[in-house]
């Protein structure tokens, strides 16, 4: 069952990505991108990573692609709608793509999967996930962990620890990103504001 679903989602993700590259119509590319990113979200859900999957859907599929299509609709007309790449571009793209693929494959092959599985089991197995009556899926354990880690508490590492140094969370990066987003928001509002030079006479 899991294998079947994995195959479907993986094929859709890869097929969508290929179609993005091979298609020449900008809007269709955006649509294939939706399929690819949506299937990736499906893969996240299969890994019980609800939060990451939801974020993938909201930000990439719901946000970015909608803005992409919106931008294409406003700007593209006639000659810009279809993109044909020259042979030189194709060669460059294939070269870069092949290099990246090689790097990913080498990295994946170097991971010691068996050893890591044993290590992970030792780290988490007894502590929280295998407690009797604990329903992993129902409790959505990644969500709570991510939430607590963003507030600076790494209870996935510190729970049951009697002494010693506590692990660091992600409170500072979280705050920095929040302030950064606020700056971007205000900047966008400033840029988008109507630049009206006309002075309205007061008391008319």
């Amino acid at each position, binding site marked *: 069952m899991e294998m079947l679903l994995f195959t479907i989602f993986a094929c859709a993700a890869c097929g969508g990505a290929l179609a993005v590259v091979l298609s020449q119509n900008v809007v269709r590319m955006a649509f294939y991108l939706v399929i690819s990113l949506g299937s990736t979200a499906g893969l996240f859900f299969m890994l019980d990573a609800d939060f990451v999957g939801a974020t993938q859907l909201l930000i990439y599929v719901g946000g970015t692609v*909608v803005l992409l299509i919106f931008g294409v609709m406003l700007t593209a007309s006639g000659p810009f709608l279809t993109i044909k790449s020259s042979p030189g571009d194709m060669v460059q793209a294939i070269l870069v793509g092949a290099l990246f693929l090689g790097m990913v494959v080498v990295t994946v092959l170097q991971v010691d999967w068996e050893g890591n599985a044993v290590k992970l089991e030792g780290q988490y197995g007894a502590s929280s996930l295998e407690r009797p009556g604990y329903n992993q899926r129902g*409790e959505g354990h990644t969500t709570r962990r991510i939430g607590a880690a963003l507030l600076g508490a790494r209870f996935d590492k510190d729970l049951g620890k009697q002494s010693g140094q506590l692990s660091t969370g992600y409170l500072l990066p979280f705050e920095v990103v929040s302030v950064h987003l606020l700056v971007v928001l205000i900047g966008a509002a400033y840029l988008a504001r109507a630049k009206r030079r006309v002075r309205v006479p007061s008391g008319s």
Partner: protein
Amino acid sequence: MMPVLATETISDFLSDEWGWSHIVALAGAAIAHVALIGAFFGLPAFAGIWAERKVSGRIQDRLGPTRTGGRFGWLQSLADGVKLLQKEDLWPNAADAMLFRVAPYIVVIASVAAFMFLPFSDGWVAVSLDVGLFLALAILSLEVLGIILAGYSSGSKWSLFGGMREAAQMVSYEVPLGLTAVIPVVLAGSMNLDEIGRMQEGWFWNWFIFHDPFTMIAFFVFFTVTLASNKRAPFDLAEAESELVGGFHTEYSGFRWSLFFLAEYASMYFVSALGVILFLGGWWTGIAPIDNFFRTNDTWVVNYLGNVLGFAVLLIKASKLVFLQIWIRWTLPRLRIDQVMTTCLKYLVPISCFLFLGAVTWSMLLPGRSAFGTKSSLGARAVETATVDRSPGHGLEIVATPIGTAEEGAR
């Protein structure tokens, strides 16, 4: 059918009681869930389209449908459906045929999938997740994608204008929608819709709408925003018959056209039910003795009946909100596109920011106190049931343990 109540999930029931193998049981449970949700997608649309005709008729001093199905024209939606199925499925020459044909399905999938996270009664939910609300809103926001694609791929100016208006409107209205939906999350301490509903148990002043003045206003802001996000009048700029012929669905006919409408009515129902769960006490009747009688009773029949009652209560509450949406549609004139954007960006966004800050300040200064001040249940008891009972030793320790504890333990 008693064993259904004894097991946690349908798949457990199928594998334990009927001896199905694990995979078959999972598939069976999935099919059962999909069938139920599919029914929930179709029936509100069926009832909603009929109600729309009836209510609009009454508001315009007519009778509406009276003959189809004997009395009250109650089979009108079915007749409409049969008529639509018989129409020719065509697409314009200028259209991008593939995207044109796919677009209605995206809208429908987004709108059906959102129902997965909606609890219909205590524990009656297809997928209960800690990110339920977040995910439901994320999936619902995919609907706009189908509408933009439909508008773009039709190869018609009316459709393109409709699609662009819809895109602009949806992208803006998602901001106040998220901000107002977060307020109940702050009060409940969970994004799990099941949990949020469970927090509002007891008398109706435990409902989040009566929690404090900010949540009271937040509900109305939420309702206004959901009107816009469903492109219902007065925010139905995307279709605007009087100026854009049919807006984004101008070029559609037959079955594909009816899919847009099914999706619209189903999402009307979905956002209403979401509003009920977030603000209006979910599946609780609001009269504590009734709910307590059903909840605390040991016999499974009574418990089950309590769940059925909750289901009915949720349906009734959500239907009233749907009725309100229809009422508003046939009462208020349509806004212009610039007025729609002004309403959102200049009024609703600041208002919802203010409400969010207000609600957060309230729950910081007066934790667990509602405006009535009569209950102590929400604070301590709610957190207890939410985290301790359901995941022993998993949540509360984090909340209660200060950062220095491990060092203190070492001393």
